């Protein structure tokens, strides 16, 4: 059986500027694939190619074996754009009615889908209120619900938590996890590392239009760092000392990063050396590598630059 999404050698250029440069990936049934990358990396372009809103310069995209843009592919895709793509003057229920009809639903099927989506988004009690009166989080939830009325099997979520408060963000995470429980495949673009870590079965790190790493989070970390962790020592004017101990200055200055494989032994050694050199340590942090570290390691840049 064809996978929910198969992308081969996808490329897209705007003039001389490549937005996507040969992306290939596959999404399995019930899988949440995170697209992690900074702004302008090509995440949204890729999503818009899958929805059929951007024509690729090269490459192919298949949705459950059907070419993108076909009626069958459209019927199986649920697209949730980054913007609040709703009619502000209409109520929540009216918005769902509109987009349900645009997706071919009517009558009882539409009513059932609307009720189910309102419930999923936790907006039953606000169904008859105009969307313009909603909080940012409520709008986001309704924005997501409006893409799911026709029960798509592949959902494209483009940065669904942008501008959302932490409480609403947790609610959105729960909604996405509910989708996974229903066996729906999801592509989830974000530049929030913690979202990808919490929600995604696999992560594709995308930068400058290319996938530079793809796999489960633990695998990516292991591939990049092995068993190494990162120690950051905050002190001033200690570049020579840090270099002698295998450290490197941090990007912001005022601190030095050390990679350690045996934390108990190596941290003690570094601190003892600093004391011996009369270097005043103001603070220190120790963290196991995560996706952000992987991104930094692979690109030399912070994720949110």
């Amino acid at each position, binding site marked *: 059986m064809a996978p929910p999404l198969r992308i081969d050698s996808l490329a897209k250029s705007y003039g001389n500027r490549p937005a996507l440069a040969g992306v290939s990936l596959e999404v399995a049934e019930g899988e949440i694939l995170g697209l992690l990358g900074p702004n302008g990396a090509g995440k949204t372009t890729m999503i818009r190619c899958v929805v*059929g809103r951007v024509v690729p310069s090269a490459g192919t995209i298949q949705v459950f074996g059907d070419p993108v843009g076909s009626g069958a592919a459209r019927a199986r895709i649920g697209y949730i754009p980054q*913007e609040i793509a709703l009619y502000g003057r209409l109520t929540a229920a009216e918005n769902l009615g509109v987009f349900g009809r645009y997706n071919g639903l009517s009558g009882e099927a539409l009513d059932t889908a609307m009720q189910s989506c309102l419930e999923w988004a936790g907006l039953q009690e606000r169904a008859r209120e105009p969307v313009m009166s909603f909080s940012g989080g409520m709008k986001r939830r309704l924005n997501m619900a409006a893409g799911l009325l026709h029960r798509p099997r592949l959902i494209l979520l483009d940065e669904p938590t942008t501008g959302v408060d932490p409480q609403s963000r947790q609610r959105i995470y729960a909604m996405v996890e509910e989708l996974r429980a229903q066996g729906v495949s999801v592509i989830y673009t974000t530049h929030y590392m913690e979202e990808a870590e919490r929600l995604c079965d696999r992560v594709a790190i995308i930068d400058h239009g290319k996938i530079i790493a793809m796999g489960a989070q633990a695998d990516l970390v292991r591939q990049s760092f092995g068993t190494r962790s990162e120690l950051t020592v905050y002190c001033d004017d200690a570049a020579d000392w840090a270099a002698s101990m295998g450290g490197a200055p941090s990007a912001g200055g005022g601190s030095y990063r050390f990679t350690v494989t045996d934390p108990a032994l190596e941290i003690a050694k570094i601190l003892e050396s600093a004391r011996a050199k009369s270097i005043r340590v103001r603070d220190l942090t120790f963290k196991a590598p995560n996706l952000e570290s992987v991104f930094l390691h692979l690109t030399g840049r912070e994720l949110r630059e």
Partner: protein
Amino acid sequence: MILDIIRTGFMNLRRDRGALMLSFIVPIAFFSIFAGIFGSRKGGTDPIHMVVVDEDRSEFSRRFVNALKGEAGLRVETVRQDPASAEQAVKAGDVSVAVILPKGFGAAPISFSHETVGARLQILNDSSDPIAAQVVFGLIQKAAMISMPDAMATEGTRMLDRYSGGLTPVQRARIDSSMAALRSHLDAPRDSERTDPAGGLSGGLIAADIRDVVGENKKNPLVAFYAAGIGVMFLLFSASAAGGAMLDEADNGTLDRILSSRVTMTTLLLGKLGYAALLGFLQLTVMFLWGAFAFRVELFRHLDGFLVMAIVTSLASASLGLCLAASCKTRAQLSSLTTLVVLVMSALGGSMVPRFIMPEFLQKIGFVTFNAWAIDGFTKIFWREEPVTHVWLQVVVLLGAAVVFFAVARRLARRWEVA
């Protein structure tokens, strides 16, 4: 699907009080203001396009017609040779005035008294331009003086024979008395131009009957013009605003969402066209209902013509609105372009000032706007009371404009389809 798009448009409109006001209240206010200002306006055309039918074919009438042709204030046409076709030309709005020189006119064209000796000249008029007949009547007197001095002398001699009876003191006194009476008659313009009981003008050198052949029973001649003119202008504004909703949808991602559903761009544009056209039709209906209620526009007597003209006008406006929206990238850009295009089209096309009082070259330029065609159609129906079949040309032009504008809008909308 198209119905759903139309329905969505109205759902949005219902919540947008500003758009509702712009669609229905503001046009009525403008219409009322213009109707109030111009409803009883006296205006005229210069030069006046007129037709002369010479049924007399005498030496006098030939010279008289030539003198009229020499008048800078008149554009005289003589190709129509019978009174019926001349009257039809006035009714159709092809000319402002028709002058009929009846048989026998040349026998005694000049009269220095209120008693008409020969056949009276006929002036056929369109009462929407009440001043034209008066101007023509005045220029006829001038033409008579220039072209018929011998007739004047003959009439003078006749008057002399009639009143003097020789140059006796008594006769001289009678002549002096008559001449004094004539001078005082000519010196007193109101007396000399009084309307006679038959509805004509006498007291000049040439007596004439003036007959309104169009709109003689209408109370407020220019209101029908403004109902159509203002209506079409606001139709264009609201059609552009309706089309502009696509710019908002493109901005906030709704267009992406719609086009990733089962709705195609052509379907979406047809839905938008349907919404804007239906809204325009409702606007015109409200406008004419108000006109019927407040200004006695005869809507119900011309319902068939109104429906035909309202439908094609709404479609053309909606298409242009879509076209304008599709050619702009932002709402602000659209707003500026719409204001410019609509006001220029409205001014040229006769929405603000009736085209018949414009200079002829402007009247011709006006035909590049569909305001002119729409107003002409409405005018034919409501003012000239022509049957609905007589507006076929206006209908064809407006439908053609609708198709062309829609095709252009569809082509321009390709930029939204894929990037």
